[in-house]
Structures are given as structure tokens and as C-alpha cells.
């Protein structure tokens, strides 16, 4: 049950149904995080650590950190170099870098293209959607997981969830 306001002007990406976000978070197992930082106080590190704690495998992609590990995972220079199957690509880069990442996401067979809070590129989204991917933009999977599981409410946030059932993702 969602509380987010209706999309103004028919913008499909202004809000997403809770059911869509839940189905993504339930079905995805492996996430490639483009722009994952080895610095522990960067937002991407926060999100990667949280998602690992929730049982996801997160594979970092960052050409500037090749040869390192982040949170126990080998860093790759690009999505195309990852040898394992990737379910979702999470973009932690500025919006203008999204189109080639979307092309790579399609090429490696990802099912979901997710752009972080503050990241939105409608052309990249259209390309990915035409190739059959589900696209979420301007959202953080950590915050969405926390919101839908009730954890965000632990810190006083308005999750928008009303339910007489015990919460689970």
C-alpha cells in the first residue's frame, strides 16, 4: 500500500507502485553496483554494505578501483567484465553517464536497471525498457528496502505503509 503522490503530467517515473519495488527486491539476487566506492564514508559503500546484510550479492564496478576488493567483492572495470550472472544494475554515477551503462546492462542480460536517488536519465531508461528491462530511477534500493520492511520507520520516517499484518519484504 503506497502513499506516494500520483505522477504529475503522466510521468511514469515520478512514482512507482510499492508492489513493483517489492517484486524487484524479492526477485533480484545479484546486483552490480556501478560507481561503488572503496571509501567507507561514501553513500555507495553504505548502500552496498546494507544490501549485503540483507542477503544480496553486490558486485562493485569502478574502473578507478580495479585490483581492489570492496566489502569482500572483487572490483570490475566494467559490467561486461563480470563473469557471473547479474540480475540488476544499480547506477551510482551522475545522470549523464547512464546511457552507456544502460547499453552494458542490456548486453549482460540484466533484468532491472536501477538509478540511484538523484540519478535520472530518460533516454537510458527508454533504451533499457525497449530491451525488456524494468527501470527504476531516482530511488535508493537501501531506502526502499528499509521503507517497505519497516526499518525506515525505526528512525521516524513516514514509510506510507499501513498494514495490520506483521511486515516482511
Amino acid at each position, binding site marked *: 500500500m503506497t502513499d506516494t503522490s500520483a505522477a504529475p503530467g503522466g510521468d511514469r517515473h515520478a512514482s512507482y507502485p510499492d508492489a513493483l519495488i517489492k517484486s524487484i527486491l524479492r526477485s533480484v539476487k545479484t546486483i552490480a553496483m556501478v560507481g561503488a566506492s572503496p571509501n567507507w564514508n561514501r553513500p555507495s559503500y553504505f548502500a552496498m554494505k546494507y544490501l549485503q546484510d540483507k542477503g544480496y550479492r553486490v558486485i562493485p564496478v569502478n574502473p578507478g578501483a580495479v585490483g581492489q576488493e570492496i566489502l569482500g567483492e572483487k572490483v570490475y572495470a566494467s559490467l561486461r567484465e563480470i563473469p557471473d550472472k547479474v540480475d540488476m544494475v544499480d547506477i551510482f554515477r551522475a545522470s549523464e553517464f547512464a546511457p552507456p551503462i544502460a547499453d552494458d546492462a542490456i548486453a549482460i542480460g540484466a533484468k532491472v536497471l536501477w538509478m540511484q536517488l538523484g540519478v535520472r536519465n530518460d533516454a537510458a531508461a527508454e533504451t533499457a525498457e525497449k530491451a525488456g528491462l524494468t527501470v527504476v530511477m531516482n530511488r535508493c534500493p537501501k531506502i526502499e528496502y528499509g521503507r517497505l520492511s519497516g526499518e525506515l520507520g525505526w528512525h521516524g*520516517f513516514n514509510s506510507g505503509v499501513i498494514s*495490520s499484518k506483521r511486515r516482511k519484504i
Partner: protein
Amino acid sequence: MSIKSRYGFETLSIHAGASPDPATGARSTPIYQTTAFVFDDVDHAASLFNLQTFGYIYGRLTNPTTAVLEERIASLEGGRGATCTASGHSAQLLAFFPLMQPGDEFVSSRRLYGGSVTQFTRTFQKFGWKGVLVDADDPETVRKAITPKTKAVFCESLANPGGVISDIEALAKVAHDAGLPLIVDNTMATPYLCRPIDWGADLVIHSTTKFLSGHGNAMGGAVVDSGTFDWAKDDRFPSLCKPEPAYHGLTFTETFGDLAYTIYGHAIGLRDLGPTMAPMNAYLTILGCETLALRMQRHIENAQKVAEYLDGHPEVAWVSYAGLPSNKYRALAQKYLPKGAGSVFTIGVKGGYQAGVKVVESVDLFSHLANIGDTRSLIIHPASTTHRQLNPEQQVAAGAGPDVLRLSIGLESIDDIIRDLDQALAQASRLAA
């Protein structure tokens, strides 16, 4: 603009934030009467201390019972998140804390609860914060008072002791034109009567001690963030948009997006200033919120009847209630509080100081005390109590002249409320005769 919900106000009042307890299935929110919470392991502890994962550490920062109330109040106000505090006064402190540095200023309406005037102009000085109080009835006066050091504009939606209503939309425009947030104290109106975020407010604060808890039994405050003000658009709010040394250089706006202000409230504000709401008080306030709509309906119904009755009473010189047709703030009341103008207002008794004293000493049902927003009807004579230290000229300027009585109309039977006031006014009139 506020976060819209597909649920009605009454549903949110009862359910928001309060799904069954995840551990036990308890349907009513349990009182987590504990100071601290165990860590799974050292790594989990580190993640929590680094703010990398959601979870509980220590009761000064967060508590599961209080968190339910925070989500409840955030939902009712249409905000992104809320931080509950030990009192309304500490909510004001926590609201300004992320915005202000030593030497900074804020501009406030001067029509405030008297205790806020003292806090803003005296106590905040000790932090190097300057509260500039102006007549906010004319928004241009507020505009002229803004300087490069100003960090916020402040008003009460429905101002204590009553009758005064702020033009929230106009004040929001003045604040936003200057790149500043508007903070609105919504204690007297409650989100049932007015939702300031709908009119452009960026932050909303409450003394939950009043109508939200509603039964005169639990101290508390709340700071609600709309989540829509961009704290990082320039360098004016370094606490939020610059690296925070106390968290190893983390930048709140970058890491937490629109959650930044509320996370700062818990992780820095409550952590380092310490005015935490007690879990028991959070529970009582949750209980109060569940009946907020029902209580407010009766509060305003009773208040309107009492105001109309007193307006024609031979011992009453004037009634300052925005629900009366003759009131100066009637038009603003119809815009911002269409359901009703609250249940706290002032009256002037004929016979001045002695008559005022006689009325508060003669009431039998009204309680003579310094609070508002109780199920019980309350009365106070400011000139002989809360404003006693002022000289007569200052008392009049503060709306606390010798003849002024403040009433907070409760939920008792309306005939009993009116009869009690009537007999007390009769005793005061015999004094004058």
C-alpha cells in the same frame, strides 16, 4: 508540498507507523522500556555507529515506541520524517539546531507562546543565535528583517494565547524568496485543523504535550521535516551539506537525500543535546493521536459555543476568537482552519485585574493551571501568573493585560462548561458592585 496518502486522516491517526510488533505480533504498540539494544556482532555495531544500517543503538537516539509516534506524526502532517523530543521547547531547540551556527539569526513572528519569546530572545543568545521578533501580520515586515545571517522564518499557525492566525502561505513565499525554510509551530491547530506543509511550510514543530497527547499526562515535542527543502543548494546550512567531522566526514545531504534533516535530528541533535522523549510518554501520545480527530471535533464545537456565549455576556468586555464573525483573523481562519479556530482563546473581563483573579479563583470545573489542550477545561490569568514579572505596559503589549483570561476549552458537557464560567463571572461582578 506534503506527501499525500491514500488513507484518511482518522485511519492514519490510528495506524500510521504501528503495524503489529514484528517480534511478538502485539497489536497495540508495546512500550520498549529499555535504555540500550544489543548488537549482533562487532561489525553490526560498527555499521550502526557509522549510520550505514538502520537499527537501534541507545535510547538517547532512537526507541521503537518513540519511532512509531514519529512516523505517526510525520504521516499526519504529510512530512517525510519526524524527530520526537522531551518537550515542545526542546523541539524548537532541535528544529533550529541543524540550521544555525554561532552568529546566525532567524526571523520570527512576535505573536508566540510567552515561553518561546524568552527561549528565542534570551536563552538562544547563549549559543550565539539571534531570534529577531517582528509583527508578522504584514509579511513585508518579515521580508525587511531578513539579513544575510538569517537562516529561517518562524511562526505559530494558530498563535498562543489565541485568536491570532499566521498567513502561512504568504510567509512561506517570503522565506522561499530569500532561500530560507519556514518553520511553523502547529501545536494549537494540530494537523486535524491545519497542515502547514500543504501551505508551503518546510518544517513543522509541536508541543505534543497539548492536543496530540491530549489528556494532560505526557510531556513531549516533535520536529517534522517536509523533506522538500534543498539544504545543499548553497553553503548556508553547513551542518547538513558539508562533511560532518563527528561522523568521519560524512555529508548528510549527500548520503541521506531527503532523509538528511531527520537523521541529523537523531544522530547529532538527540545524541549530543539529549532531550529524548521517554518511551512511556511516546506510548501515551500514540494513544492520544488515535482519537485526535474525534477530540478536536468536540474541542472546536465546545470552543465555538463558549466563545459565542461569552461574546454576549454582560461581564465580558471582549472575546478574541477567530471563530467569531467580528474577529480580525476571521478570513485567515476560514482559509487555514476551515473546520474550526481551535479551542484556546482569550477574553477580557470587565473589572480588570481583581475581576480576573476572582474568576480563576471561583471556577469549579475549570482547572487553574499553566497548560492547554487537555480533555479538561483550563483557565489562567496571565497578569497574576505567567506574565507577573512584566510591568503593566509590557503586559498589555504581550496580550496579557490585567483583564485578560486564557481559556482552553475541554471535552466536558457544554452546559457544564458554560455554567461554571457563568457562576465565576457572577462572583467577579459581585466583587465590583
